[in-house]
C-alpha cells in the first residue's frame, strides 16, 4: 500500500514484509456477545491459512475485520507491517471473495473485473490487458461480455476470484467461496485455488466450516471455537495430534469413549479398559475421554488375543465409501463403534454377526472429559 504524504508516514515493520497479516489480541463484541475473543495470529506472506469452525465461532467476523468492514473493540491488526485500524476497506490492499460472490448484476463480466482497476484510475489499455489476463487465468475469457446473471454458480465463483485477484492484493480473503457449489465442482475448485495460490504467491486467508476443504488446501489451519483459536497448526498435526477433544472431533470422525483414569493410566469404564501410548497426566479417577479414528480400528470376526484395546459387538451395517468400507458395530449400551478399512483386503463379514474391533495404543488420544466435543461424533451413526 502506498502512503500518500510524508506527513502521515506509516511506521512499517521490517520483520513483517508485504503479505504478512498480524492480529494482536483482537477482540470484537457485538452487543452482549463476544464474536472474537482476544485472538492473536500471524500469517506469513504467501501462506494459505484456513479459519475453520462451526457457524458463530467468529471466523467470518475475523475476516471482516481484516477487510475493514468491522472494527475491533480492542487489539491491533497489521497488514504488510502497517497498522490498518481506522483505514477504510477501500484503502486497504486486500480483496475479498464474498460468500455469495456479490458480482454487480448491472455490469458485464469484464466490467466487474475492471471495477477495481478503474477505481485506481489505471489507464484504459492497461485495464483491458489486465482484465483479459485475469479472465484467462480463471478460464473465463470467452464469457467476458456476458452479464453475471447468465452464468452458473461455478462460473460466477471464477469471476469473483478474477475480480479480486486482478488488483494484485497483498492478501486475498475468501469467505466460504465454495459453499454454494456442488461437491464435484467444489473439489475441482479446491485444486484450482491451491494451484493459483502457489503460482501467485499471494497470502490467502480462507474461511470455511468444511474440514475437508481446510485439510486439502491449507498450509496451516486455525480451528476456532467461540471466538478463540483452539489450535493453529498444519493439517497433518491437527489431524494426528489434536490438542483437545474439540479439535479431534471437528477434524474427521472419531470414536469417543468415556471413562475414568485408573491407576495404570488407562481409561476404565464398565465395558473395559483403553490404553493410550501417551498417557494423560492427570490424577487417578479423573473423568477422561479417549478418541480413536475409524481408520485406526481393525475389525475381525475372530476373537483377538489378550489385549486391552478391544471391544466386541454386533455388525449393524457395511457401507461402501469408494476407496474404503465402513463398518458400524453395535457394542451394546446404546454405543456404536465406527471402523473403516481400505477396500482391498477389507474383511468379509456377515451382517448381524459378532465381530471384534481392536486398535493400537498409538492410535488412542486421551483428553479430559470436561471438554465437550462439537457436533457430538461419539455416536458415529451419521
Amino acid at each position, binding site marked *: 500500500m502506498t502512503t500518500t504524504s510524508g506527513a502521515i508516514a506509516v511506521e512499517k515493520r521490517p520483520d513483517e514484509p508485504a503479505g504478512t497479516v498480524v492480529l494482536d489480541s483482537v477482540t470484537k463484541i457485538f452487543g452482549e456477545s463476544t464474536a472474537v475473543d482476544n485472538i492473536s495470529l500471524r500469517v506469513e506472506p504467501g501462506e494459505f491459512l484456513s479459519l475453520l469452525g462451526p457457524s458463530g465461532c467468529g471466523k467470518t467476523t475475523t475476516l471482516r475485520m481484516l477487510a475493514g468492514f468491522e472494527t475491533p473493540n480492542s487489539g491491533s491488526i497489521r497488514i504488510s507491517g502497517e497498522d490498518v485500524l481506522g483505514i477504510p476497506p477501500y484503502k486497504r490492499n486486500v480483496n*475479498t471473495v464474498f460468500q455469495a460472490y456479490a458480482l454487480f448484476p448491472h455490469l458485464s463480466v469484464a466490467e466487474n473485473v475492471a471495477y477495481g482497476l478503474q477505481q485506481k484510475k489505471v489507464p484504459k489499455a492497461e485495464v483491458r490487458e489486465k482484465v483479459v489476463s485475469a479472465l484467462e487465468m480463471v478460464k473465463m475469457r470467452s464469457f467476458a461480455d456476458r452479464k453475471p446473471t447468465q452464468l452458473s454458480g461455478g462460473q460466477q465463483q471464477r469471476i469473483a476470484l478474477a475480480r479480486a485477484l486482478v488488483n494484485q492484493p497483498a492478501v486475498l480473503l475468501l469467505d466460504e467461496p465454495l459453499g454454494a457449489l456442488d461437491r464435484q465442482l467444489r473439489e475441482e475448485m479446491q485444486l484450482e485455488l491451491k494451484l493459483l495460490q502457489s503460482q501467485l504467491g499471494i497470502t490467502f486467508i480462507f474461511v470455511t466450516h468444511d474440514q475437508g476443504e481446510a485439510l486439502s488446501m491449507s498450509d496451516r489451519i486455525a480451528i476456532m471455537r467461540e471466538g478463540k483459536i483452539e489450535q493453529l497448526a498444519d493439517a497433518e498435526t491437527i489431524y494426528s495430534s489434536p490438542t483437545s477433544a474439540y479439535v479431534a472431533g471437528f477434524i474427521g470422525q472419531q470414536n469417543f469413549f468415556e471413562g475414568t483414569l485408573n491407576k495404570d493410566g488407562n481409561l476404565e469404564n464398565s465395558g473395559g479398559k483403553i490404553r493410550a501410548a501417551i498417557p494423560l497426566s492427570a490424577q487417578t479417577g479423573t473423568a477422561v475421554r479417549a478418541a480413536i479414528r475409524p481408520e485406526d480400528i481393525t475389525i475381525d470376526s475372530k476373537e483377538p488375543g489378550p489385549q486391552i484395546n478391544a471391544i466386541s459387538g454386533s455388525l449393524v451395517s457395511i457401507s461402501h465409501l469408494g476407496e474404503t468400507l465402513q463398518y458400524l458395530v453395535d457394542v451394546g449400551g446404546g454405543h456404536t463403534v465406527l471402523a473403516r478399512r481400505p477396500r482391498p483386503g477389507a474383511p468379509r463379514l456377515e451382517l448381524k454377526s459378532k465381530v471384534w474391533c481392536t486398535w493400537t495404543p498409538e492410535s488412542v488420544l486421551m483428553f479430559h472429559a470436561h471438554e465437550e466435543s462439537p457436533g457430538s461424533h461419539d455416536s458415529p451413526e451419521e
Partner: protein
Amino acid sequence: MSRLRLPRPILAFPAIGWLLIFFVAPVLLVLWFSFGYKPGVFQTHANDKLSFDRYAEALNPTFFTTFWNTLWVGVAGTLLCLIIAFPVAYWMAAKIPSRYRGLLIALVMVPYWTNFLVRTIGWQIILAPHGWLSAALNWLGLIDGSLDILYTRSAVLLGVVYNYLPLMILPLYVAFDRVSQDMREASKDLGAGRIATLLRVTIPLAMPGIIVGTLLVYIPLMGDYITATVLGGAKGNMAGVLVASQFQTAQNWALGSAMAVLLILLILVSAALAGLIIWLLLLPFNRSRRLVIGVAK
C-alpha cells in the same frame, strides 16, 4: 372427474377490462370532445362539426403562463421530492435495523391516509399571513410583519412536496432495499469510496425504483388542482385548475377537453425530454466505464 379449467390469463382480464372502461375510454372521449364545440349556454359540448378551433382557443397567453407555472411547479416539486426522499429512503433501507423499518414505513404512510384536501387545508392555517408560523418567525426575527407565502407559487410547491413525498419515498425505499449490503461492501472492497459506490453501484441498481418514484410523483403532480386551488390562488395557478374550471364552472367541455389533451401532451413530452437529457448527460460517463472484450482471436 373432469372439472372446467379456465385458462390462467383470465386472472388478468378484470384489471385489463377495468383499465379499458375507466381509463382508455374516458381519455378517448376527452380526445373526441376536444374536437367539438360548446353549442349554447345550457349545453356542455357538441361534436357535429369537428375542428381544431378549441386548441387555438386554448393556446392563449393566460394558458401559456399557467402551463409554464405548472411545468415549473411539476419539475421543481418532483426534484425536491427526489432530493428529500433519497437520503430518507436510503437511511431506512440501509442503515436502520430491520425491526424499526415497519414503524418508519407506517410513519411515512399514515399522513397519506388522511384526506388529501384536509391535509392541504391544514397548510392554509399554518401559512396564514397572521397565523402561528408567521408569529413564530416574527418572534425569531426571521421576518418582519405578515408571512406572505400563502396564495403564491411557493405555497403550491410546499404543498405538493408535502402531499407527494410518500409516493417518492416508498419506491426508493424498495429500490434501495434490493441493493444488498454485499454489493456496497464488494464495491468498497475493490477500492471505491462512498461517493463512487453510490454513483457506480447503489444508484444504477436502484434506477428502476428512482424512475418509478419520479413518474409516480411527476404525473399526478402535473395534473393536481386541489393543492393549487387551496394554496395557490391566482398567483399559483396550475393547468389542472384551468381544466377543472372549464368542466365545472364554465361548462365548456370541448375547451376543457382540449386543455386536458394539451396537458397530457405536456406531461408526456416533458417526461420523455427529461429522460433523454439525463441519458445524454450520463453518456460520456457510461462510455468511459464501458469495457467490451469481444471474442478471442
